[in-house]
């Protein structure tokens, strides 16, 4: 199947009206922004403090916020309480070890920690290897572009807001997909997620990165 669209999802437009949520870059109300900001604190400074200074206080802040979320995610994915506790600690330890890999121009902290938790879930719950894509060609001296990081942060907030605003039935479908309760043919039902802008933003960051390495 040829799928070349960068900003569209092709023929399945069941929920495509939702794209409009992300196009509203400036028109969310003040109250909405407060709600979004509360749940999407920028954790970049704490992760950099771990990377640059092995800052245990910064880690404790991250831990207080993310460890209960990772554990909740693992339990909903089918882990019992003791396995979830053990895996949560491993996920948080991985966060410390891989702090140098965090790139705020490509992923928010919650996105990045989700990928670590997801990989641990596949390993511990599904007992499978997880083939991962190659790393991108960046050197340790290449600092992520500030404007890209800020742009991505804003679009991640809008994505979070758009998902919150989805009809309950569709929001539950998305949760089930990420907790591992849906097959990939069932997942086909929920294409049309409001991802257009965030996808273009990440693409731009990747292109910059490629260009910088030439």
């Amino acid at each position, binding site marked *: 199947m040829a799928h070349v669209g960068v900003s569209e999802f092709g023929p399945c437009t069941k929920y495509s009206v939702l794209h409009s949520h992300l196009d509203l870059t400036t028109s969310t109300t003040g109250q909405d922004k407060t709600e979004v900001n509360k749940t999407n604190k920028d954790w970049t400074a704490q992760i950099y403090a771990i990377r640059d200074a092995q800052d245990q206080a910064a880690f404790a802040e991250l831990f207080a916020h993310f460890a209960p*979320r990772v554990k909740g*995610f693992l339990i909903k994915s089918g882990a019992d309480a003791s396995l979830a506790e053990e895996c949560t600690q491993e996920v948080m330890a991985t966060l410390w070890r891989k702090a140098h890999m965090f790139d705020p121009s490509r992923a928010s902290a919650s996105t990045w920690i989700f990928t670590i938790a997801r990989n641990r879930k596949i390993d511990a719950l599904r007992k499978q290897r997880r083939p991962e894509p190659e790393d991108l060609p960046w050197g340790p001296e290449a600092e992520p572009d500030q404007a890209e990081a800020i742009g991505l942060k804003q679009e991640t907030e809008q994505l979070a807001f758009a998902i919150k605003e989805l009809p309950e039935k569709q929001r539950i479908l998305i949760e089930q*997909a990420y907790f*591992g309760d849906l097959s990939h043919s069932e997942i086909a039902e929920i294409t049309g997620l409001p991802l257009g802008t965030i996808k273009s933003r990440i*693409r731009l960051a990747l292109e910059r990165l490629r260009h910088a390495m030439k």
Partner: protein
Amino acid sequence: MNMTDTIKHHLTPEILMAYSAGTLPEAFSLIVATHVSMCDVCRAELDSYDAVGGVVMEDAVTADVSSDALSSTMKLIAASDTAPKAPRRSTGTLPSPLQDYVGGDLSAIKWKPLGMGVKQVILSTSKAATARLLYIPAGAAVPDHGHQGTEMTLVLQGAFVDEEDRFARGDVEVANEDMEHTPIADMGEDCICLAVTDAPLKFNALIPRIAQRFLRI
């Protein structure tokens, strides 16, 4: 190993989302990781599905961790090797995720002949789906076959043409049960593909059907 400018056939949204959610069989995860290693379009789309996962995790019901969880985690960190690893990047023909399964680049592949110059090797993955490397000599055809489930084929070297289109390095073809096709390798170069199936292929002639039993095609 970026080939974004020349890739014309990409992964479908549902496959990328399932990979992000971590629900694909291992063989399908392997073909996704291999294609994404070559394709920034799909890498960006995958990253955006990971962002959805981040939002879902952020908003999901939390579970209290044990009172000594932070100190236990600090002990885990102290006991582990914190030296940063070098970026994992292939300079050969096979992208890194595939090299991990082959144990090296093209020269490390232990081909088994299927007849007519066609060769294959089955890679070791979980049983829910099968991943194989296929070698098709320039100008040769893979026997005409239909599918019971989903078959995904990623071109790693050379190119092939079938009833649908032409597929070159980095392109991925997704075929389902409605589709019967006869891929033919381009004349210029022998074609090497990664093919993943979640059910056995259905061959339309008797001889390949018999061979199938012995060769696990």
